[in-house]
């Protein structure tokens, strides 16, 4: 495994944005004028003025299905210092979760984001738990300051596909092969 840096992506890891199945993407408790696309879609997430915001309270539940089975390596979540997310739980392959059953089973991984993470340092997940992911559920439990609104500027997922359809540039070393 290569060394992480604040901005570099792991070798062989690609931005999984291309594999997101946009028709099934859902976000519960989002403010309708600040929706998930602001944080997830190419172009929108680079825009500093657009962000994802929570509505009734500070929790957010994001459901992202993929068009093919992927392995998740790390994720990046950028947000403001105080209203950015703090405790983030990831669930792999659990469909249609609601706020009431997030605590019913243990998350595949959970993360407490630091300010470095919010500035752009990716968080590496437990890779073994995300070896064949069809869909990812991100539960943002609370935010840094403890207020009623959580804001997320950008969400990026890094990983690889399970099949061997790599981008040619990343072929130098295969750790995984079917």
């Amino acid at each position, binding site marked *: 495994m290569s060394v992480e840096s604040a901005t570099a992506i792991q070798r062989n890891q690609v931005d999984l944005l291309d594999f997101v199945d946009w028709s099934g993407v859902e976000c519960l408790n989002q403010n309708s004028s600040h929706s998930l696309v602001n944080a997830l879609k190419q172009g929108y997430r680079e825009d500093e003025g657009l962000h994802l915001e929570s*509505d009734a309270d500070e929790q957010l539940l994001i459901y992202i299905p993929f068009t093919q089975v992927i392995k998740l390596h790390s994720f990046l979540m950028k947000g403001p210092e105080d209203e950015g997310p703090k405790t983030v739980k990831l669930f792999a392959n659990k469909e249609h979760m609601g*706020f009431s059953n997030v605590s019913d089973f243990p998350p595949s991984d959970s993360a407490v984001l630091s300010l470095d993470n919010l500035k752009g340092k990716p968080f590496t997940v437990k890779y073994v738990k995300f070896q064949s992911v069809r869909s990812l559920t991100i539960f943002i439990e609370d935010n840094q300051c403890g207020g009623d609104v959580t804001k997320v500027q950008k969400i990026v997922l890094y990983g690889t596909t399970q099949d061997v359809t790599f981008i040619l540039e990343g072929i130098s070393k295969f750790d995984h092969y079917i």
Partner: protein
Amino acid sequence: MVLEATMICIDNSEWMRNGDYTPTRFQAQADAVNLICGAKTQSNPENTVGVLTMAGKGVRVLVTPTSDLGKILACMHGLEIGGEMNLAAGIQVAQLALKHRQNKKQQQRIIVFAGSPVKYDKKVLETIGRKLKKNSVALDIVDFGEGDDGKPEKLEALLSAVNNNDSSHIIHVPPGPNALSDVLISTPVFTGDGEGGSGFAAAAAAAAAAGGVSGFDFGVDPNLDPELALALRVSMEEERARQEAAAKRAAEEAARQEKGGEQPSNSQDTTMTEHKTITAPEAENKKNDLMDDETALLEQALAMSMDDPRTSNSMGDTDMSEATTEDQDLAFALQMSVQDNPKDSASQTEMNKVLGDQSFVSSILASLPGVDPNDPSVKDLLASLQGQSEAEQKNDDKPPNEDK
């Protein structure tokens, strides 16, 4: 055509025995539920509807969300009235039932009939509302029956806590001769936020009222009469905007119910609809009945145009589709509407005539859909009515079903 799963919460508490809505509050509610189920399943065949009762021994789910209309109608039978309504528990159980719906792609909606006093305070209701909003559940509240103890304010607070992008609504229905379902037909509860709702609302109303549904929107479709269909649609839009005012006029409407004959004629005549936006909903219902009489009516309308100026009021709006199966009534109505174009508010008295059979009229009234419309015309009629007692006498003198 939104794909939606709906849970309807019925109030079957002791307060529903009251007869201020015809025939009883409970029966009016049951009719409204039946219509809603029909409308939802018609707008999208994959929609599901479930029903639960909030009073009685406790909150009880009668049927989980299903698209089988027969099952829903069957479970409405044999419901007993008693106990007190538990609004908070009812909404929470409804939310749970929706959570376990089979098709997770459906949007979630709860329709609550709140007829008895609400014993919960605003804070609790707002918490419930926020929880619904967080789980993206829309809520429609039908506020009828008891209206004290700050109940409207509490329900408004609940609505504002739930409301997300105007997907939730509240309808206040005051007591009156108009059937609860008639008032609801033109509201967003039926029309689904205005997205082509008028189509199934009209069809549902027509189906319930006439039984001779042609299946078309507004009873007549572009195939037969594009101008008429367009005029009806425009009228429907306008009418919807004024429905609340119409509910207030329900009392006056009753007096004019006899005029039912006018309704169908109005709908027949494209030009008429321009003046009577309110008649549109009734017109739709009428249409179904009048399909056969259309030709005859048009002929009569032409004849009427030449006729003397009677202060007929176009308002006839109170839909009396069933009542006007007779050509004579239709002819009369047509005449009235033609005459009345310049002055909408001819006089309420006009309504009074027409149907010779009082009992027939009253029975029709009870089953009439879409009674609420007629806001502008009704108002005018009221004003003119008070000023024109003579007109009433004139109307009384005229024999019902007179031909021109």
